[in-house]
């Protein structure tokens, strides 16, 4: 049947050559190359569930009186946005599952992007000719975070509304332009009337459109440049070894898609997420203890908590505290991420050729150590965002915990980086697993020697503990 389809399209589009090339295209099979697929397929789930939700959600801050099936809120005044989200959760058929699947998919989408970015970073897959794809990927991560934040702010519940207030204050803190930026984005002084409907357009149309386009470019570049691969038998800088797109790669990938869909569906039905009916509708004068954003914004929340009370005030103007952790930190973080391929090329002076074989992380101790140190930094920030919950669960002082996190933020990355560097250097000096096991010979005087593979003089090992080849232990 594929042959018939190919012929039909070929006579109209001239695609047979392309189709045959495509079907036979070889993709390397390592499991760590499927991380991007997790992100891609999660995004697909977001699109599908999101379309369904958009048919029922009302992006409006108009006040309505609740008259639905959730008894503890009956008669309460709330926005149409909040009310429609309750309606989706309680009255729309499959609404709860769709809504929860959508939210779980968002968490997994961002986690997958982070893990995929980590794999690309630690294996050096961002090097020439793939710098452009790295830039696109970092942009996808940034846009994904923004879209996730926009999405969970749409229901106008107490928890996400608190986050919007903080977001407003961060915009406000931008020097010179801050007040105008906030007023134009939100439509006035907080809580302005337009923000939910604007976030809806951003979340449903603008950002998904840009993300889709960038994903297309990301994959087109991958297609054109062919995937990287680890060094190994038969693999060189000039070939790709793996399975063909059709039938086995496509089949396995489709199967993987359904498994992902299954995991998200199971979570969507079995694990409650974002129970907005328990948080109540957003009221500007109310707040809940233990308010946290979704995990991928956690580093920002943690930064706001641990950053000291420093402010710049001069000549009648202020650069307020939140500017530094709220604008400067993300700016520097993403700036460095964008610049990394070029920085590394400059420092290692290795920009002379294309790289298609991947590094093993231990072969690049400096890069790997910097990577783990940065991860440690953001993990500390993430835990700092949960400092009040940690304090409650472990019954310790929240103020003490925050002081400890400040110290940890400086000390832990340095320690992790240093340890990683040492481990990489040691690991790199070990023999490769693929090499033959060492041959040990026992001489008549009772001592053991390692025989070198190429027949050199046996190396004196000294202590009679080495295991003899083939003998009992």
């Amino acid at each position, binding site marked *: 049947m594929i042959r018939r389809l190919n012929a039909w399209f070929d006579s109209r589009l001239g695609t047979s050559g392309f189709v045959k090339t495509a079907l036979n295209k070889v993709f390397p099979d390592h499991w760590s190359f499927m991380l991007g697929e997790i992100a891609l397929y999660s995004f697909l789930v977001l699109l599908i569930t999101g379309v369904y939700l958009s048919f029922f959600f009302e992006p409006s801050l108009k006040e309505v009186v609740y008259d639905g099936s959730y008894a503890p809120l009956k008669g309460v005044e709330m926005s149409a946005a909040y009310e429609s989200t309750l309606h989706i959760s309680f009255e729309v058929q499959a609404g709860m599952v769709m809504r929860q699947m959508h939210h779980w998919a968002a968490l997994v989408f961002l986690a997958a992007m982070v893990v995929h970015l980590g794999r690309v970073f630690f294996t050096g897959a961002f090097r020439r000719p793939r710098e452009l794809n790295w830039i696109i990927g970092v942009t996808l991560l940034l846009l994904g975070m923004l879209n996730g934040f926009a999405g969970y702010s749409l229901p106008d519940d107490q928890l996400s509304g608190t986050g919007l207030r*903080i977001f407003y204050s961060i915009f406000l803190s931008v020097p010179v332009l*801050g007040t105008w930026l906030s007023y134009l984005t939100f439509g006035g*002084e907080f809580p302005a009337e337009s923000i939910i409907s604007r976030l809806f357009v951003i979340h449903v149309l603008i950002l998904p459109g840009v993300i889709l386009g960038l994903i297309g470019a990301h994959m087109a570049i991958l297609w054109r440049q062919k995937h990287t691969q680890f060094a190994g038998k038969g693999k060189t800088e000039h070939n790709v070894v793996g399975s063909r797109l059709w*039938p086995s790669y496509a089949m396995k990938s489709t199967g993987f898609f359904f*498994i992902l869909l299954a995991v998200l*569906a199971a979570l969507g039905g079995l694990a409650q997420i974002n129970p907005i009916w328990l948080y109540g509708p957003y009221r500007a004068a109310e707040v809940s203890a233990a308010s946290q954003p979704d995990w991928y914004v956690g580093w920002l*929340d943690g930064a*706001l908590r641990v950053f000291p009370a420093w402010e710049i005030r001069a000549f009648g103007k202020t650069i307020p*505290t939140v500017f530094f952790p709220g604008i400067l930190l993300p700016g520097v973080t993403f700036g460095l991420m964008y610049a990394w391929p070029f920085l590394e090329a400059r420092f290692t002076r290795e920009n002379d050729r294309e790289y298609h074989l991947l590094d093993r992380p231990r072969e690049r101790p400096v890069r790997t150590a910097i990577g783990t140190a940065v991860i440690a930094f953001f993990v500390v920030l993430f835990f700092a965002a949960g400092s009040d919950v940690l304090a409650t669960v472990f019954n310790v002082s929240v103020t003490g915990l925050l002081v400890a996190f400040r110290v940890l933020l400086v000390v832990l990355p340095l320690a992790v980086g240093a340890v990683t560097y040492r481990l990489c250097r040691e690991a790199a000096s070990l023999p490769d697993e693929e090499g033959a096991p060492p041959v040990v010979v026992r001489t008549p005087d009772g001592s053991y020697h390692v025989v070198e593979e190429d027949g050199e003089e046996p190396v004196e090992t000294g202590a009679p503990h080495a295991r003899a080849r083939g003998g009992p232990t």
Partner: protein
Amino acid sequence: MSEASRDERRTERSIGIALGVSAVTALALAFTFAVGGQPQVEGALLGVSLGSLGWALAAWGKHLLPAGPFVQERHELGADDAPSEPVSRLVQAGEVDEPGPGGVPAVPDPDEDTMDAMGRRPFLLKCLFGAMGALGLAALFPIRSLGPNPGRSLFETAWRKGSLLVNEEGRPVRATELDVGSVVTVFPEGHVGAADAQTLLIRAVDEDLVTREGREGWAPQGYVAYSKVCTHAGCPVGLYQVATRQLLCPCHQSLFDVMDGARPVFGPATRSLPQLPLDIDDDGFLRAQSDYHEAIGPGFWERP
């Protein structure tokens, strides 16, 4: 039957069973929807149905299809010397043109012509950028419509001289209402729920209150009022710790000393919560003497 094909038959059977499970659970899901639905059952059935389908496809791809590994050569990227397809110029009647090889009038160097064509007119290019810049400037005006001019609005709230303090139900607060150690959220009358005017009214021990310079008479009978909007990032500072007489903001743990003008003593906040000057009128109701004397909430560029 050989060992390999026996394994294959086994795999085939497992895949078939998995697909059967997928179908059955999908039917069960349809039934669940038909009888009204229940999220946990829906999630579980969807999970099993999709999961078995996914496993079946993946196992099929992994075990029953030609696995390779296959090898394919990489083509070299960045070989810039590949010429574009030949381009010729159409000769009109009467035109004289230089014939190229083969007698066909050819464009001398199609790539040079194409890539450098615009660059040969720098003056026009500058005019073009000027025009685009002007259009961009014009586009700012629709953007300006997105919101109002901030103006003085960040420096003012709805509190006025004589505003009655009302609770969230709109009831005015009497001076006899709160015991020492009580707290209530108040708004100016007519503006219940106003985000910038939200205020905490606390009954403190009169003698222990430290009165800052210029704030004499602001806290009658131990009633002290502070803006509830945190000066760090704007969350409502809702936690009043009576025992330590401190206000804690739940968002980023800024701590304010109620006895000393809500001065920040821990956490990322840099400025005290603004204090609302209070009065008790002749009927015993609490009123504001005026609006706050400074901008409430988080800092911004124009705030001195």
